[in-house]
């Protein structure tokens, strides 16, 4: 009886909250500030031709800098929680799947490079490219070609941190000329491409790492 009552109360509360939210949104007048116009007006000085990339890496690039920090932090947390120093040997996958993975992985790297390059003028960019790289690594891992992770060595750590570090160095260096991440318009495009290239590699490694560091204990009974 009580659980039924509780359930009814929860459903009622949730429905009224969601309902109030929807009505409040329908009731909103048009906002006073119109940022898309400001984005449009400053596109020429942003160094890229795609508005979302301009917001992500120029107008609100500082958010993105901190966000890459969050991603690195999550990997640190995952590594800190794991206890094992050496990963288990990869389980051999089926030959057909391995063949598929060996063919698909280089293709995925090509797609990543394309997405990175395309991001300046159309949808795409470091995050999507990094995600594709990460997916390629996961695929190689699932087919038993790439081993899981233990504690990462120096070279891997450098790869993981490189994107963030490049971003940080650019931010700090530009501070000397006025403000954090204030690109000179003439060099904005090149600097953004440099940051994005670093991010693609590091994001790919981090996203892959989230999976590879986590999955190392799958099915083990140590």
């Amino acid at each position, binding site marked *: 009886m009580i659980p039924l009552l509780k359930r009814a109360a929860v459903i009622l509360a949730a429905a009224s909250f969601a309902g109030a939210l929807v009505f409040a949104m329908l009731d*909103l007048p048009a906002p006073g*500030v119109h940022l898309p116009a400001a984005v449009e007006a400053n596109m020429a000085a942003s160094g890229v031709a795609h508005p979302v990339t301009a917001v992500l890496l120029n107008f*609100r690039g500082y958010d993105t800098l901190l966000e890459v920090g*969050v991603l690195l*932090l999550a990997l640190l*947390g995952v590594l800190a*929680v794991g206890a094992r120093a050496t990963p288990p040997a990869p389980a051999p996958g089926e030959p057909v799947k391995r063949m598929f993975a060996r063919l698909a992985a280089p293709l995925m790297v090509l797609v990543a490079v394309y997405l990175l390059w395309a991001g300046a003028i159309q949808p795409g960019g470091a995050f999507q490219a990094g995600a594709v790289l990460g997916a390629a690594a996961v695929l190689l891992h699932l087919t038993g070609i790439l081993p899981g992770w233990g504690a990462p060595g120096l070279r891997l*750590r450098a790869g993981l941190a490189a994107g*963030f570090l490049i971003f940080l160095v650019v931010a700090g260096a530009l501070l000397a000329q006025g403000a*954090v991440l204030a690109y000179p318009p003439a060099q904005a495009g090149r600097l953004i491409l440099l940051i994005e290239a670093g991010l693609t590699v590091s994001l790919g490694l981090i996203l892959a790492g989230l999976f590879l560091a986590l999955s190392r204990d799958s099915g083990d009974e140590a």
Partner: protein
Amino acid sequence: MTDPIAWLILLPLFWATAAFLLGPGRGARLAIAALLAQCGLALQLAADVIDGGARTHAVGGWGAPLGIDLAVGGLSALMLVLTQAIALPLAVYARAYFADGAPAVRYFWTLTGFLLAGLNALFLAADLFNLYVTLELVGLAAVGLVAAGGSARQVAAALRYLFAALVGSVMYLLGVALIYGAHGTVSLQTLAPLVDARAPAAVWIACGLMLAGLMLKTAIFPFHYWLPPAHGGAPAPVSALLSALVVKASFYLILRLSLEVFAPLAATAATALGLLGAAAIAWGSWQALRTVHIKMLVAWSTVAQLGYLFLVFPLLAPDGLALQAGVMQAIAHGLAKAAMFAAVGVLMLATGRDTLEGLAGVAGRMPLTLFAFGLAGVTLMGLPPSGGFLAKWLLIEAALTHGQWGWVAVVIAGGLLAAAYVFRVLRQAFLLAPADSPFHPVPRSMEWTAFVLATASMLLGLQGVELMSLLAAGS
């Protein structure tokens, strides 16, 4: 060129990354050196604010609302000084604490660097969405630090903490989404003149969601459930960082948002927040009186002391008394609680036990550490000349000015309860130890850092005027 606003964020990010590159467990000396520099930067910034008032730094050179601004005023400058001033001694402490290479140290320095960068970025942020990212930075770093010990209890505490932090963030984010929908901007500076008491319903809901999310992160009663296991179960330096600084960050945000942007709406919730504060004082103190674990006692004391911060809201007025009281309480409690967790960590290492019972005899063996604990306790009780005394005095003065007598009773009762749980520890420490009880020597640097932090919380009351003039400078 060397704007301290920017370097207070970039520098900890640099050393956090460098500590990661150096490898597991490394980076202690780097962190301490960098923290020294950060202390200098924070002090320089405070001096700038006293001389020149509040100012902003336009990241990317665009300026709000298109770009993101960083802003510093009296309140944020104070919080920045407090953060670096607590983090530096705790880093010295942690270096000795983790000298044996416990598993928790593997990622301690890099996680701490990210945590401090997140805190500094949060105090300097002036953009609702940017604040969301800094909240995540702080939250994930704190959870990682709690979990790094790796025991089942710590992992469970970290998970509980993570869910609270994540749900709090998403509630906050939905609030931001509604604000952007209503006003088309997330810059605090642009928003401030747009929000008034005739705000549409969506803005009210947004306010409620952001407030609820931040309360969950501040662990104010009844959202305190995650705090005691997380703060009580983590290694001592981590508990100290979390209790002294991390919960203050979300409180700071509630205070700042209700002062700067949502002032026309904030008054409606003020009394309710004050009542929750009173309930937190009662419940946290009661649990601190009951627990048998010394670290849980200190953690529950944090639940109670956070209550004082929320007593500020019903008393906020143009005279600024309540604001001063709240800031003073945040600073005094930060220093005192860092000292207390540091002292308890020393006592636990020395006796090898985590219960109050195990403390028998430490008065004779570790007088300095016990003295530090006692001094910090005096601040929590609110006896003169401590910072806690000044905070409570200002709070009582504010309550009397507005004729709200009820809050005076709460403040005095809270002080008595704090005395009761602090004396539980002191009385036990002065008992004679069983002859066969083991005792491990502890590095002196750990004892001294606890003592320095406790002394600072004690002498803070004498510097009240200077601190309050800084608070007034930017606002």
